[in-house]
């Protein structure tokens, strides 16, 4: 793995170095060149931070592709450039790799030096806070496509961060609305022992309280270490997991919080009582699914498959939405000037079409992208939340996650 990362990084660094002079020139010339001037395209450079991804997953299906996320950004660059032919704008993607908060901050500096004004960060919360500060020092805008922490939307308010990725509360609320609609309101919650699992379990408990469900049993599955899998491993899984899940009160569904993939994938078909599974396994709330094709989604899926040769995952879509946000704002603002583009992007008129059946907009107070959440099981999109009947005075999409009054952020 180390070798691949290094060699890829070297190639990217070379690409960045080649692109840099053009990108810098563009930033300087952007102020004078507008959409009307198609002769000399304005270059708009966008950076993408590639994280160190977990290589080992419980299911082989979930092993991340080397270009996970970055491929979505690259497709959006193509889409932006197709439009750019008519507006005199040319888009470039610069990529950097970072594993730690310090590396992420350093990568942001390199992207700034290469002429990028926007950074798409697929990083956990701690790294996001660090790199956002580095980006702020350079006047850059960050798209968060990795950190789902609700605290980043309610307490730690980052003025130069747009949250494209849904928060845990948005995901949990989306699931809860559907389960409420199904009247599956008695939940058996099983959470992993890592901080992310605990945070997701908290979001699930909050969602249950909000939408009229009851957690009838609340258990923690301790990660005691050990290998991801062993040969003949299923023999023990099928003996141990049901035993762990027995003696729970009557429940309609088992809800799993296991972001770290310690046990969740194994829960379906291994419950003590025959019940469906949702959360981190079974019916999963997500911003995107490789099988989503409604609202024109099939067109994006086809474009992605043609270009990349694999299915489009959630990480790819989040990066696509981030790059398209810049493209959309640049088209509408008819400018290549980063400040003008950001003014539009963070302003009241910005909206993004992203194959979700309605316009996606930003919550002005914390810059979280409002979006319908898909509920998918890997083979089909079972439903899309918000569900009908859950009302909100300003936007039904704000029935998902923390609302304005619950957030300390006020941009």
């Amino acid at each position, binding site marked *: 793995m180390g070798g691949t990362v290094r060699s890829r990084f070297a190639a990217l660094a070379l690409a960045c170095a080649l692109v840099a002079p053009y990108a810098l020139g563009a930033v300087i010339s952007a102020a004078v060149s507008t959409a009307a001037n198609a002769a000399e395209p304005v270059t708009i450079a966008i950076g993408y931070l590639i994280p160190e991804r977990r290589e080992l997953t419980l299911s082989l299906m979930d092993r991340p592709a080397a270009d996970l996320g970055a491929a979505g950004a690259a497709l959006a660059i193509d889409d932006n450039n197709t439009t750019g032919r008519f507006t005199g704008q040319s888009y470039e993607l610069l990529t950097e790799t970072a594993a730690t908060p310090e590396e992420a901050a350093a990568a942001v500096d390199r992207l700034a030096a290469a002429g990028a004004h926007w950074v798409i960060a697929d990083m956990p919360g701690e790294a996001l806070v660090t790199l956002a500060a580095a980006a702020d020092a350079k006047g850059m805008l960050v798209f968060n496509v990795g950190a789902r922490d609700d605290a980043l939307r309610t307490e730690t308010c980052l003025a130069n961060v747009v949250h494209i990725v849904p928060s845990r509360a948005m995901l949990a609320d989306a699931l809860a609305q559907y389960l409420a609609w199904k009247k599956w309101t008695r939940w058996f919650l099983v959470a992993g022992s890592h901080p992310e699992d605990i945070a997701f379990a908290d979001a699930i408990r909050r969602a249950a309280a909000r939408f009229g469900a009851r957690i009838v049993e609340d258990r923690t599955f301790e990660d005691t270490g050990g290998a991801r899998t062993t040969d003949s491993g299923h023999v023990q899984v099928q003996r141990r997991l049901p035993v762990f899940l027995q003696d729970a009160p009557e429940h309609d569904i088992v809800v799993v919080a296991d972001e770290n993939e310690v046990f969740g994938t194994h829960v379906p078909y291994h419950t003590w009582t025959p019940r469906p599974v949702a959360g981190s396994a079974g019916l999963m709330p997500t911003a995107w699914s490789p099988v989503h094709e409604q609202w*024109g989604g099939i067109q994006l899926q086809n474009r992605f498959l*043609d270009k990349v040769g694999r299915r489009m995952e959630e990480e790819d879509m989040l990066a696509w939405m981030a790059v*398209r946000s810049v493209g959309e704002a640049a088209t509408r603002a008819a400018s290549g000037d980063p400040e003008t583009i950001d003014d539009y992007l963070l302003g009241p008129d910005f909206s993004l079409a992203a194959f979700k059946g309605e*316009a996606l907009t930003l919550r002005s107070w914390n810059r979280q992208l409002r979006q319908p959440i898909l509920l998918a099981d890997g083979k089909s999109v079972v439903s899309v939340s918000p569900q009908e009947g859950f009302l909100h005075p300003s*936007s039904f999409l704000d029935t998902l996650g923390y609302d304005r009054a619950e957030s300390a952020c006020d941009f």
Partner: protein
Amino acid sequence: MRAILCAASLLALTASAGQAMAYTIFVSNEKGNSVSVIDSETMEVTDTIDVGQRPRGITVAEEGTHLLVAVGDDDTVEVYDTKTHERLYTLPSGPDPELFVLHPDGNHLYIANEDDNLVTVVDLKSRSMVSEIPVGVEPEGMGVSPDGKFIVNTSETTNMAHFIDTESHEIVGNVLVDQRPRFAEFKADGSEVWVSSEIGGSVSIIDPIKHEVTHKITFEVPGLRPEAIQPVGVRITKDGSTAFVALGPANRVAVVDAATYEVTDYLLVGQRVWQLGFSPDEDMIFATNGVSNDVSVIDVAAREVVNTIPVGEFPWGVVTLAD
């Protein structure tokens, strides 16, 4: 022959005094892989034609003898006999054809290829592809100016109306509109193009000479959240006085005064209404309701839904043909 025609039109005239002339309505059913054939006299489905996969765009060509159906999942346009309902041949269309428009010359079909960012031009006589024109991302809506000089294509992710010169096949103008433009319709006098924006929730009125948006129509239905109002199909009466706009999941067709751009009525139709088609003499307009699997019949003068006809699964496009 002339005598027969004369007699026929005289008959038609006489008929129109009492009741409208008879015609046939063809409806493409996107999920049903079929075309429902409706008789205007009974307003009932008289035949269902099995067609290719995912039929959407539908029109009549060759002086009413041929029915053209874009079958996206089969990457072709199928041609059917409008009388016998037999499949005659297929046209090269480029991949995933969705919507198309027939040039007033009756011979050139302009097809939007959603997946390839192209508009394909097909010659019906020679059944061959004439040209491929690169446009914006996800081309869909197709309109043609009455004089045949310009095609307007809308691209759903680029969010533009592209004006294409039909002689040179070059783009001569790009007009930015609201999110996800779905449909383009010229007024019969060529003075305006109306472009609907599904996600933007608006209809942009475009000056086809200056390539500028001169007005934007928005919609408001009490009790409906604004996001549910998603304009798709647009039809304007030949006299340019009245426009009908299908509002998707708002389950309504808006009636618009096409001179003042004021919305005068919202007609409740079936679920997820997308496309519209006038009867030959414009006394009726038909609306396809995808989710409720039916077609609403709207009396144009009375501005009233007068009938609902069950058709196949997920009706999409509609075209009418005088008998």
